[in-house]
């Protein structure tokens, strides 16, 4: 039967045009496609530099290979800083986070205030704060503890990390249904026992993805230490560019450093998303 001509939408033949799934959440990752795309951009910039560079001097590839190990060393130093400040920040942050849910106001309010303050201050300003205001050595009677610049940088980066971890811990603890607390109380658990044996083990699972996310953010923030004069990957990249004074090398050199960070942080982001999906039961 032929449908009569009509302008009523309901009577028009229905073409099912589903809303395309937003590709971003697709589990089939474009990881291969994405990595290939980034690699192509990098290779193209390198090729352009190779072709446009002066003929009489070393080619772009040669120079890049010469500097790559050193830049990679700088990048490893970034990673070292990130691991140490994450450890320090997590240790402090867990204490603050538990303090934030404490029943005693004396503990809760200062923890809350410190968390909010350090969470809302820029990372770079906190880093400056630590770099300039910490003493370069601490005398405790006969013992002198030296604070070299990189130790101060670790402390400076650990401050915002601690505040963020504190929020993650608080959120994780709060996300556990109150029935857990009540049943633990009914079974005559003390508050400390409830916290350590019932609440935290469950909350850790929920805190892990945001914690890893924070770690990726911290790793990317470690380049800030180049601003306060510590030799990291970015400093070395800049120094290499100054030493070679070849403007056409800038694109590939910076892209190389970006690629290193990308290669490290992207798997973490993937893993975080996978964990989130696993722990999250979508209601």
């Amino acid at each position, binding site marked *: 039967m032929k449908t009569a001509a009509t302008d009523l939408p309901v009577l028009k033949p229905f073409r099912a045009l589903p*809303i395309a799934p937003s*590709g971003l959440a697709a589990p089939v990752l474009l990881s291969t496609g994405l990595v290939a795309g980034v690699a192509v951009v990098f290779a193209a910039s390198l090729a352009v530099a190779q072709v446009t560079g002066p003929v009489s001097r070393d080619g772009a590839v040669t120079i890049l290979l010469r500097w790559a190990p050193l830049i990679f060393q700088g990048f490893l130093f970034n990673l070292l800083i990130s691991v140490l400040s994450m450890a320090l920040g997590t240790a402090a942050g867990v204490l603050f986070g538990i303090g934030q849910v404490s029943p005693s106001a004396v503990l809760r309010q200062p923890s809350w205030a410190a968390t909010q303050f350090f969470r809302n201050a820029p990372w770079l300003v906190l880093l400056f704060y630590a770099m300039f205001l910490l003493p370069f050595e601490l005398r405790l009677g006969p013992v002198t503890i030296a604070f070299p610049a990189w130790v101060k940088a670790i402390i400076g980066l650990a401050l915002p990390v601690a505040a963020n971890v504190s929020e993650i811990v608080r959120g994780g603890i709060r996300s556990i249904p109150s029935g857990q607390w009540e049943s633990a109380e009914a079974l005559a658990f003390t508050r400390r026992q409830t916290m350590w044996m019932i609440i935290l083990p469950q909350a850790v699972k929920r805190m892990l993805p945001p914690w890893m996310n924070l770690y990726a953010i911290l790793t990317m923030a470690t380049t800030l230490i180049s601003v306060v004069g510590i030799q990291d990957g970015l400093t070395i990249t800049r120094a290499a560019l100054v030493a070679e004074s070849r403007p056409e090398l800038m694109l590939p050199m910076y892209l190389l450093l970006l690629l290193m*960070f990308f290669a490290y942080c992207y798997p973490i982001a993937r893993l975080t998303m996978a964990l989130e999906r696993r722990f999250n039961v979508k209601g």
Partner: protein
Amino acid sequence: MIAAFFERLNEVHGLNFSIFYDAFDRSRFLTGLWTTTYICVVSILASLAIGLLGVWIAGGNSRLGRALVRAYVQFFRNTPPLVQLSFFYFAVGGLLPTISDGFGGQSPLVSGTGWAIIAFSLFAGAFNVEIFRAGIEAVPETMVEAAESLGYTRFQLWRQIMLPLAFRICLPALNNNLVNLVKTTTLAYAIGVPELLYAASQIWSEVFNVREMMNVLLVVYVLLVAVLVWVMHRWERAMRIPGYMP
């Protein structure tokens, strides 16, 4: 009166808040504050536009468009903003032609402030795409189906049904990201943009009041963020639909 108070504070206690009594330092500080505010506002607006555009393309039919948006988001989310900024300012900015400034000198096509705004917008925009996507996915499917059965086109569906709902759902996450953006603007210091941190560092290296300026700086940034959070909360409350809890 304020100036006299801080001058006395300096003489008696050695706490040198030069920005409160020295006109030159104050004007430098206020210029920095203005630059920071300017970068923040423009980047916030641009990053919102990028986020909307990205999520529109990501939900579209073009396979290439989806792949491009995904690559953009993952790349900008997983590389350090400081390196992105350096990349834009030194590498891309170095390749662009310079223009004559009319006094016989050459000035770059895009200034440091311009590059800072571009870099921060792209950085925050990548996060915004993800945030908007999460919001749109949270819109109940039945709602979309109902609209489709009423003959809405895709644009109408987005503009009149999905975005208004998604926006309310993702406001807290958006809030977080915009606060982050405000904090990220300090990175512009690294390419010599005269923003707040840069102005403060100039002052403390000339007047030798690192400790005082540092504290002023922290307080000012916390205040800036507080203003943003306050505005966003007001907005969140104003937009709340009574009885609708996503």
